[in-house]
């Protein structure tokens, strides 16, 4: 069942959602700029195009949404990746196992030493293991010590402007100084 979307006439792609499934809302950070009436907002109420989120296919005037669904281009990329990785693996096995003399007789003389066929995988595995240890260590090193000013405040909090509170409006978001926070938590709970 296809529903008429709002003015822009959005249609689902082949293999996409055709009147079924929950509405995926890509790019939630950009607010809806067009105010649509509630009756018109259907499953595919889409914000206007922004350069980061949307590819507008100018030829057809339809919009391609950023969705993880299978598309013909993606299938092609995947197959190319599959073929090249299989080819790379077979080439690696040939290089590692076929004796040097056979390769020379075929005319392939300028290939790297077979030492590297063993050395590179070992290097890679050790790098991965050290990566775990290194990440843990870097995290601990970049934690501020207890006497650091960064545990209390930072440049943003120091430079923030204090807006006047409007009547009956939610106050603006701001960084509360730690002395006030402490008084609220620990002194008034008597």
């Amino acid at each position, binding site marked *: 069942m296809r529903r008429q979307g709002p003015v822009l006439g959005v249609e689902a792609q082949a293999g996409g959602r055709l009147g079924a499934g929950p509405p995926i809302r890509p790019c939630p950070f950009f607010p809806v700029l067009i105010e649509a009436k509630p009756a018109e907002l259907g499953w595919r109420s889409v914000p206007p195009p922004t350069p980061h989120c949307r590819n507008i296919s100018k030829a057809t005037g339809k919009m391609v949404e950023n969705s993880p669904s299978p598309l013909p281009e993606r299938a092609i990329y995947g197959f190319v990746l599959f073929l090249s990785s299989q080819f790379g693996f077979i080439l690696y096995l040939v290089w590692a196992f076929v004796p040097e003399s056979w390769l020379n007789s075929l005319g392939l003389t300028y290939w790297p030493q077979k030492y590297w066929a063993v050395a590179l995988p070992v290097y890679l595995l050790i790098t991965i293991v050290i990566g775990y240890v290194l990440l843990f260590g870097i995290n601990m090193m970049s934690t501020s010590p*207890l*006497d650091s*000013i960064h*545990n209390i405040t930072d440049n943003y909090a120091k430079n923030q402007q204090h807006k006047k509170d409007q009547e009956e409006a939610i106050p603006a978001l701001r960084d509360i100084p730690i*002395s006030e926070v*402490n008084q609220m938590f*620990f002194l008034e709970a008597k």
Partner: protein
Amino acid sequence: MAGPGAGEPAMEDERSFSDICGGRLALHRRYYSPSCLEFCLSCPRISLRSLTAVTCTVWLAAYGLFTLCENSMILSAAIFITLLGLLGYLHFVKIDHETLLIIDSLGIQMTSSYASGKESTTFIEMGKVKDVIINEAIYMQKVIYYLCILLKDPVEPHGISQVVPIFQSAKPRLDCLIEVYRSCQEILAHQKAASTSP
């Protein structure tokens, strides 16, 4: 606990708390006057179990080396290392109790007493103290509460120039920190009232 007259706060108070690792701490509070207060936090003593564990490990390792090298100097060296290590640990590392003394018009003094009797003192005058707060921070793999003194920035009136954490080796939990915090805030409020009124 000494008994004062009716309506006065207790002169001396001793309560038991625990630190972040679960060891027992004793908080001893001495109230000298409305403008002067002292807190003394005693850390757990060095336990016989950990001492024997470390000694046995070192001596077993030395014996293992001795069986490899057949040199008896290793054994006497191990005994020396254990003794000197223990003395150095007691003198430089192991803190027996920490004291916080607040005098309203004068300043805040922190004293750390090591197990060998050595004391190290830090004094901050009241003109530099902005506030005493409880802050949360990441320490090793935990998030802990700790008490710290904020120092004023000479350049900026509302800025903070430095953070001085206190009770660093005892590391008590939040219930103990709230006690100390409330008493400190009473004294600081007293001091602010005294300084603003001429």
